[in-house]
């Protein structure tokens, strides 16, 4: 990956005149494997080996910049197990995919639902943003919202319990 496409092409021109079908290059900073298939065409697989040359600056003063705070903060949000299932027959609204959970259609707007609201299967209870795509989250169950477990703009794992609903 330290080599440009032009570099790779020059190497291939050299190799094309030789009987080799494979070249492996490895230095301290990178690894490159070039292979010629049965059809005579080449593939490349590159890898940067050098460690990031990370600078400490005042700019990285975010309190959670250094750690994996996002993942850590999430573990108690019902991401893995299903302790909520044990709670007196309450129904769960789970995240269909991992991403950032939004309770309202836009900043400053009223949340889709609040505790005490009645929801149907198709009621939209939030939005999950994953890889820039907004995915609406349908309740999937009928009943009254009794608890909202993930706050607005919090990260939610796939299948994390977002809300608890009491069947009506």
């Amino acid at each position, binding site marked *: 990956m*330290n080599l*440009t*496409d032009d570099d790779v*092409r020059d190497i291939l021109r050299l190799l094309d005149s030789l009987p080799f079908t494979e070249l492996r290059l490895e230095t301290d900073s990178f690894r490159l494997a070039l292979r010629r298939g049965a059809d005579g065409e080449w593939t*490349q697989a590159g890898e940067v080996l*050098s460690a990031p040359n990370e600078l400490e600056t005042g*700019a990285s003063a975010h309190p959670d910049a250094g750690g994996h705070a*996002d993942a850590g903060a999430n573990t108690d949000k019902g991401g893995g197990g299903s302790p909520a299932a044990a709670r007196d027959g309450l129904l769960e609204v789970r995240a269909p995919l991992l991403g950032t959970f939004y309770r309202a259609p836009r900043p400053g707007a009223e949340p889709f639902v609040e505790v005490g609201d009645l929801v149907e299967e198709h009621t939209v209870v939030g939005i999950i943003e*994953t890889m820039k795509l907004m995915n609406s989250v349908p309740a999937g169950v009928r009943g009254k919202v009794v608890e909202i477990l993930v706050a607005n703009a919090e990260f939610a794992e796939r299948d994390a319990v977002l809300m608890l609903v009491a069947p009506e």
Partner: protein
Amino acid sequence: MMVRRLLIANRGEIAVRIMRTCRRLGVETVLAVSAADRDSPPARLADRTVVIGPADPARSYLDVDAVVGAARATGADAIHPGYGFLAENPRLAAACAAAGVVFVGPTETQLAAAGDKLAARGHAVAAGLPVLPGGEVRDVRAARRLADEIGWPVLVKAVGGGGGRGMKKVGGPAELADTIELAMAEAGAAFADPRVYLERFVPAGRHVEVQIAGDGERVVQLGERDCSIQRRYQKLVEEAPAPCLGDAVRAGLHAAAVAFGRRLRYRGLGTVEFLVDGDAFYFLELNARIQVEHPVTEAVYGVDLVAEQLAIAEGRPLRPELTAATPAGHAIECRINAEDWTHGFRPSPGTVTAAVFPAGDGVRVDTHLQPGARVPPHYDSLLAKLIVHGADRAAALERLRGALTRCRIDGVSTNLPMYAELTRHPEFAAGGVDTAWFPGFLGFLGFLGDRQGDEGGGRG
């Protein structure tokens, strides 16, 4: 002034792409990364890396203060924003000026004019470019009135949007209220600007855009790109030149793009997007940044657009490398995304275990992948761009078919198999399809898939 140390405020393939040019030019690179990207291949490739915030892009890649602070702290004399994130944010341009750091991009005023899609429409009209009937709507009632006036169906677009986001088709009055709500939701969340506007929907248009470059005085064009293969307004395949386009339309597009750039006294790289409907065309928007699909133009014109962008940022007039460039051959790009195209294009974050790409004449791959690279859920799904160049479109397409068979990405789901199907399709091979064609093609494949499932057999 000369740019000696460049801070790259981006990630993924474009970070690697910018570093390539820097390495060639002897410019030192500092990569500003989020905590999620601190061990990424781009972070390893950069001369220096600085962590500017947590994985959440709002507190890292979208944080103007963090980005400019990192540039100052590392002694960078310029910031390249790539595309997306802060690339077209006038606040970054202003903050750079205040900090005495060169912003690699247009002026703050030009960014504001391009970013407000209604303002851009106004400039287009003033420069004599045709636009679609439409305008701003503040509520559902006003939208209803305007839509009745310009005719259904209509497109709802975010004033602060662009790049296809916050854009929705409304077939009739019944869907209008819900769609306006959702469009405002997406716009508010993504751009902190919930304003939307309407434009008449053109069912069978082609998306053709013109690459321009300006130095504040002179504006030149480097031909057009056809980006009509899209899904939900996200481009998947781009090619240059646009196939099956009349000479008059082509020349008209080029002239219109230059006229628009002149109107703004444009400085930097830009892309003027148009909707082509038969022999007519309409201005859509100006993208005031380097575009994802810039490599097809580079392949055809033999230029390095990032190098020219840096030269313009240094305050130099457009160089002969750019002004004297002439087109040769045909280039096609496929965007390889981490999404499971067999399950509604569901995003597929994860860890890459293998990444093998084609190499050789007329083949270019822009990527940030290598074994062990993580594809975090916080950012977009672009994994790699495969670009092929040939003497003509048929040669480029043949090369593309072969190159696709030599791509292998393990660990995440990708849309690679979709391109194998697409490039075999006779209508795609014929060229010049409109934006309605690709969704139909996907529907057709879905039908085939179901049938195969029913019959329990494959097609071999």
